[in-house]
């Protein structure tokens, strides 16, 4: 929290003593297709009129969305609908793509992450990411998890680092499976284990938010179930945003769901409402399998 507070002070934004800024969602009138949220949840991230362009081509059109704190929000929609683009713009991974530009703003705890004073490296530490294909570093299991804490100086001694690695592996349920071979390469694990290793690596730098880009699409059903279980567990401490092609998965794990179509945010709200009584016809069509 201290980092963004510092950024906030520089921006002249007052932050409450608790450090927990609540950004109210915009009134439903601003978002015609929004299902009003009945209960009051603190909001972690807010996107306002976010448009993303790849060169000349616009991939995302004026998306405005609130992401609740310590819940799981799922983005669903057919391929090429802009949900991954939106996810990647939440921790500025789109910066690394040549020719990618954006307009609008993304607020995290009341700070616009695209503001010039924001340090993108620190931002990505705060907002971790898990990718579609498990991508462990070609290093040992231990080094995979220890890499983030090392570069951010989160551990002052070898023991402390060991402690972080053990805790993170334990939280992803991987510790029992790999405790005897911590120094074997991370790439020697099975696909599901690799993905959990990547999640362990993401939580090792103690982020607030974890973005997951179709984390189970390369996994078998058993590994998928294991990762979903893990997400439910992590939700207690982290805000999780997951992009998924699998509507059952969205329905199973998320509290909120947003439906994207052709670069626009069609509808978002409580997951039950989206899946049982969607407002928009396109949502209805997608979740009932008419297209997708």
């Amino acid at each position: 929290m201290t980092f963004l507070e510092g950024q906030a002070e520089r921006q002249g934004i007052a932050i409450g003593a608790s450090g927990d800024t609540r950004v109210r969602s915009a009134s439903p009138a601003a978002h015609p297709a929004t299902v009003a949220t009945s209960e009051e949840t603190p909001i972690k991230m807010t996107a306002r009129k976010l448009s993303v362009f790849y060169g000349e081509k616009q991939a995302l059109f004026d998306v405005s969305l609130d992401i609740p704190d310590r819940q799981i929000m799922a983005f669903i929609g057919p391929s090429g609908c802009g949900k991954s683009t939106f996810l990647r713009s939440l921790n500025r991974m789109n910066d690394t793509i040549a020719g990618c530009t954006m307009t609008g703003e993304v607020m995290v705890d009341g700070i616009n992450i695209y503001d010039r004073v924001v340090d993108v490296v620190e931002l990505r530490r705060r907002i971790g990411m898990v990718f579609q294909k498990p991508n462990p570093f070609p290093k040992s299991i231990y080094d995979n998890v220890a890499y983030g804490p090392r570069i951010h100086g989160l551990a002052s001694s070898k023991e402390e680092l060991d402690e972080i690695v053990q805790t993170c592996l334990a939280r992803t349920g991987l510790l029992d499976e790999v405790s005897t071979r911590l120094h074997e390469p991370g790439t020697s694990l099975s696909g599901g284990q690799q993905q959990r290793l990547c999640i362990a690596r993401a939580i090792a730098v103690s982020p607030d938010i974890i973005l997951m880009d179709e984390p189970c699409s390369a996994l078998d059903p058993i590994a998928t179930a294991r990762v979903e279980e893990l997400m439910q567990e992590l939700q207690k401490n982290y805000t999780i945003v997951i992009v998924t092609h699998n509507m059952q998965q969205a329905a199973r794990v998320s509290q909120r769901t947003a439906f994207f179509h052709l670069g626009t945010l069609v509808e978002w709200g409580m997951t039950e409402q989206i899946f049982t009584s969607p407002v928009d016809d396109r949502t209805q069509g997608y979740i009932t399998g008419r297209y997708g």
Partner: protein
Amino acid sequence: MSSLDQSLKVSGPGAAPDDAAAQRDRRSRRRKTANLRFKLYGLAAIVFAVGMLATLVVSLIMTGYPAFTQTMVRLDIELPASEIDAAAPSDANYGKFFRDALYGLFPEVKSPPQRRNIARLVTQDAEYMLRDTVVAYPSMIGKTHSIEFTASDILNQLHIGAIDRELPSDRRSISDAQIAWYDKLVAQGRIRAVFNTALFTEADSRHPEIAGLWGAITGSFYALMVCFILSFPMGIAAAVYLEEFAPKNRWTDLIEININNLAAVPSIVFGLLGLAVFLNFFGLPRSAPLVGGMVLALMTLPTIIIAGRAAIKAVPPSIRDAALGVGASAQQVAWHHTLPLAMPGILTGTIIGLAQALGETAPLLLIGMNAFITQQPGGILEPATALPTQIYIWADSPERGFVSRTSAAILVLLGFLVLMNGVAVWMRKRFERRW
């Protein structure tokens, strides 16, 4: 299989079954012969290429192998203590001791011109070799020693059979009298062929029998060191910048095209540049490995940059994403992930670039590394030759002994090239990583 057979038997529409089958047969036969022909073309090309290579290597070995042996003449040298001042042993008249011993073997020869012909059987540097030996071991003074001297080129050629003694004497470089003296020396057991270590330990000389490659090897080594020290860090820095940091715009496109073109610039152009800039403008020493290395670095740089960029590009983007995702900076991504993973490829490219530089002659000629230098260089600022320029000098020398030495020097150069490429292949295998 049965369904396949069935389908093969199905006849085409409107054709009698037998006719269609015959047609299919013909077509399949044609296809098979075409296949075979195609395979044979490839095989022929390979046989041709390997044959040419084999011809080259075999002819080099045939011409070069005599240079690996050297004929020695054993003489009994008397070193009288009365004539050598033990305090300053280098001042004594070693030419006299040597000549006394040599002429003493042929007491019947009295006339000075004839005696000079005798002296021509042993290398002209013999008295200096004797002096250096005595200076190194002063305890030799006052005794008679049996010492082996390097035979002269003509005696060497005669001994290894390169001179046909049946030829009329005006068509060979050794006279009848000299052959007779040689036969006498052989009869006395004073002639022996040994492995030619001087080829590897001595620097250049006007006399083929004592000319060696060590000066050129050290010169090449220094030049390659300079080349590596300059081009490796610069090449990596350029490759990393172009791949990881540079925006993709018209300027970087232009730079890329120019780097690719630089790799194809004739090497003599780099030599001219070195001459104009390094020697004439900056006034660096002529013939020095420093300048040679700088010119070779200019040539190697594009190779390293191109290989480095290819190796960096081959690192999967998912690794970069993963590192960026945990909050690594661009510089940390490059140092911790991209470069270590790309390093085997970069090193392979570098070694191949250096091997190219090792064989490069033209630019070195222009900056004077083809000078006649009889001492091995003591540092990168001293005049030196390099292996390819040494070959060039020797190939130009008229003495018979240099013919085989040229081939031997080419074999040595090829040996170094094969070694370097072998290291590159080994490293690629050793550090190859799969994702």
